């Protein structure tokens, strides 16, 4: 309810200030009313989940542009608009006021009708499409992965992953086809706004198994954290524990800080940690002696959603090693946050951004060209009249001809008008 009241107050204030701006005699008052309108609009921006734009509105629009306006108004001395009017009988509005007013009312009415008929809120606002990516940790060679009929991964080698791709909502059959032949399928239901990982895993000679689980890409609860999803794809592991390497206790061979316990094969665990460097060890059976894999100084970036897949890799020589495969992706930025806008400015909207820069440069050049003028040297000689003006005009009247020319020079002979005193 408070939101409704806030909207009504801000809206009414904005409209009232706009009307006052239009009716005001004084240009400075008008500018100040416009600032009130802009601040109300900034308040409305805040209500609409765009804090960044609200601040930009206040700093740039109300703060810079209107200050520039006020500066020019005061520079030109234009605050008393009434004095610029040619005559008292003309109003400060132009002659076609009734026509313009009725046109404006007609426009308002028709657009209002359109808006209400448009009924935009009756529609469901659309939700984002589900996204899917593929990670290959199977040892049967490069795989092709199809989701429905869409080829998501073409010849994906061990340890490689694709980036997220959108698929329409629905149920799909995932088909994993290794290069060596054969096919494994699984069914998955793509739900709107969810991101799914398809992990193909398995030893060298068998058909790859498919694991499907979600990757949480939503903004993190704490600013600057990173999210890690750990998936255990090592078939012969039991109760894997993930520990902090630095907390090794040499006395009894255990680790005092255990991040995850009892992670079985095929299961996931999700953590949210502050950003920084991460050093972990993966222990089989929770036993400090059985270190199966290690992460050393892996950078956990801020605002990232990471996937760590613990998998066996069969090397060409035949030996097997276990490694944690790390796949990183940035989380979705908070709606309306500076990060979201910044990302878009540098990826999707790069060209308008650059053209905007050009525009600002052109405006600067234009302003300087328009207002620059040559400064001419000022004539330094200011002659003072030797004789006062009323006296010379009386003399002129008496003599009958002009008796003074330009300002008399200091050392020039006296003009006729100077010599004769008036009787």
């Amino acid at each position, binding site marked *: 309810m408070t939101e409704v009241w806030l909207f009504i107050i801000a809206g009414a204030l904005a409209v009232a200030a706009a009307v006052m701006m239009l009716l005001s005699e004084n240009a400075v008052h008008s500018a100040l009313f416009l600032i009130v309108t802009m601040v109300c609009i900034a308040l409305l921006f805040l209500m609409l989940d765009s804090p960044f734009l609200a601040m930009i509105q206040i700093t740039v629009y109300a703060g810079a542009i209107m200050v520039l306006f006020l500066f020019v108004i005061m520079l030109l001395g234009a605050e008393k608009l009434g004095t610029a009017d040619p005559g008292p009988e003309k109003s400060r509005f132009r002659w076609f006021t009734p026509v313009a007013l009725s046109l404006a009312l007609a426009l308002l009415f028709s*657009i209002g009708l*359109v*808006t209400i*008929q*448009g*009924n*935009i809120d*009756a*529609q469901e606002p*659309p939700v984002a499409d589900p996204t899917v990516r593929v990670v290959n940790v199977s040892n049967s060679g490069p795989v092709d992965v199809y989701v429905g009929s869409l080829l998501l991964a073409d010849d994906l080698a061990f340890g490689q992953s694709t980036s997220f791709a959108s698929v329409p909502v629905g149920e799909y059959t995932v088909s994993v086809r290794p290069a060596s032949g054969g096919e494994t399928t699984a069914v998955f239901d793509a739900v709107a706004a969810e991101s799914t990982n398809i992990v193909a895993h398995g030893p060298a000679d068998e058909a790859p198994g498919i694991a499907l689980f979600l990757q949480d890409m939503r903004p993190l609860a704490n600013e600057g954290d990173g999210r890690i999803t750990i998936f255990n794809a090592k078939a012969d592991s039991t109760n894997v524990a993930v520990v902090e390497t630095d907390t090794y206790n040499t006395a009894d061979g255990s680790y005092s800080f255990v991040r995850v316990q009892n992670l079985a094969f095929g299961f996931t665990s999700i953590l949210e940690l502050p950003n920084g460097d991460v050093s972990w060890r993966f222990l089989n059976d929770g036993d400090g002696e059985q270190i199966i894999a290690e992460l050393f100084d892996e950078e956990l*970036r801020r605002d990232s959603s990471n996937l760590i897949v613990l998998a066996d890799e069969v090397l060409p020589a035949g030996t097997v090693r276990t490694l944690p495969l790390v796949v990183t992706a*940035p989380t979705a930025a908070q709606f309306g946050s500076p990060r979201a806008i*910044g*990302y878009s400015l*540098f*990826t*999707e*909207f*790069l*060209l*308008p951004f650059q*053209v*905007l820069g*050009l*525009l600002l*440069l*052109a*405006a600067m*050049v*234009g*302003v*300087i*060209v*328009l207002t620059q*003028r040559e400064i001419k040297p000022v004539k330094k000689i200011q002659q003072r009249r030797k004789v006062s003006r009323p006296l010379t005009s009386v003399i002129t009247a008496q003599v009958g001809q002009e008796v003074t020319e330009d300002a008399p020079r200091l050392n020039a002979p006296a003009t006729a008008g100077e010599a004769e005193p008036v009787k």
Partner: protein
Amino acid sequence: MLQLPSLETLNMGAALPAISIAAWACILLLIDLWIPKDRKILTVYLAAGNLVFAFIANLLVFNQSGDSFMGMYVADQFSGVMNLIIIGTALLSIVLSFDYLKRVGIERGEYYVLVLFVTAGAMFMAAANDLILIFVALELLSIPLYVLSAFRAPDIRSEEAGMKYFLLGAFASAFLVFGGAMVYGATGTTNLNEIAASAGMIIASNSSTSLFLLLGAALLLVGLGFKVAAVPFHEWTPDVYEGAPTPVTAFMSVAAKLGGFGSLLRILVVGMSAVTMTAGEPAVWQNVVAILAGLTMIVGNIVALSQANIKRMLAYSSIANAGYILMAVAAAGSPGLANEATRGALVYMLAYMFTNMGAFAVVIAVERANGGADLEHFVGLGKARPMLAIMMVVFMMSLTGIPLTGGFIGKALVFATTLNAGLVWLAIIGVLTSVVSAYYYVRVIVNMFLRDAEASTEEATPGYSTGVQWVAAVALGGTVLLGVLPTLITVLTDRVSLVASITP
């Protein structure tokens, strides 16, 4: 870390002509600092050189089709041809300006930099695939033009022209933004291709958001209509054209229309072709644009009849020409005709560019020789300077649409397209107004040849500088060549297909 898109995904090569002009404008601004005041001809050479480079670059990338800058900028044959015409305009107007600026005493290097910015803006507008880029490029096109209109600063008429142009131009761009907001509200995106897909769905499902879409389209039309001087948004044109320095008028009369029509064609054909009452029928906006076109032709031609000042007459004539191009835009609404209509519009714009630049070149020469640009100053030109008069005759004939000139080819194509679209009444208005326009064009010819000047000017003031000579010659050549051998240009335009950019 921010993942910037790689250079391959950006595909900057496709946008090379526009980018090179924009970048060089910034560099020229710096270089101009070191060019002494009396040798500003160097700036002219540098600017012209860059335009030539961009022209050649455009020819080289002509056959490259594709998105650039993540779908913002589309490099297809349409933008290729538009770029060529825009660069040609800029080149001609730069050559035209040098002597004029020196003579009037307003010579500054920044003039050429601003012209380059306008050119870049127009090129971005013609190739923009997104409402946001259209808006920003429109401002890049307009703001230097406001400044250029007021370039003869102490002269109050020039300043007044700049002020009027600025106020009405800003008014129009506010309408454009609001229209863009409505379209965004209806479709959720500002990319023209996605708008087309979304509009199709909205119309097909008969949803009520189609009202927003229509309102948005109407406001976009208003905003762009100001730029191309369509009636009833044409009030600013005569005053601004008269007050601005003549080479700026020449440039403005062509470049602003090119940018405006490029964007208008893209928005309507690529973005809104699907906005129909029932599938297979002409788009809803066809009738609206047709009415605008009809009004523009009628008002433009009829008011031009009473103009004594040639610059004002040419201003109204350019309004009328905008009407003819709008006919082609209206015809583009019919299903299947979009490509043909676009090609017609392109050829007309090319012919219009040559003719207008040539006519203004003659006006500048007459201004210099006889001190003004009223009809009176053209009297007796046939005897005093026959070459100039003959060129003017050709340009006037081209504007009327007499065969063997480029204007005729342009009008023929536009009329043919309009008839194909079934807008017979519009074509009839077009023909009738063309006949009417013959009166005031021929009046100039009559004045030049059949009346003698009262006072014989014995002082042989040089009527034209080298720059004007060149421009008039090139314009003459272009007009005649286009009229006699239209296949030279239709070879290029025949591959233009805007409709292909719509994903079905």
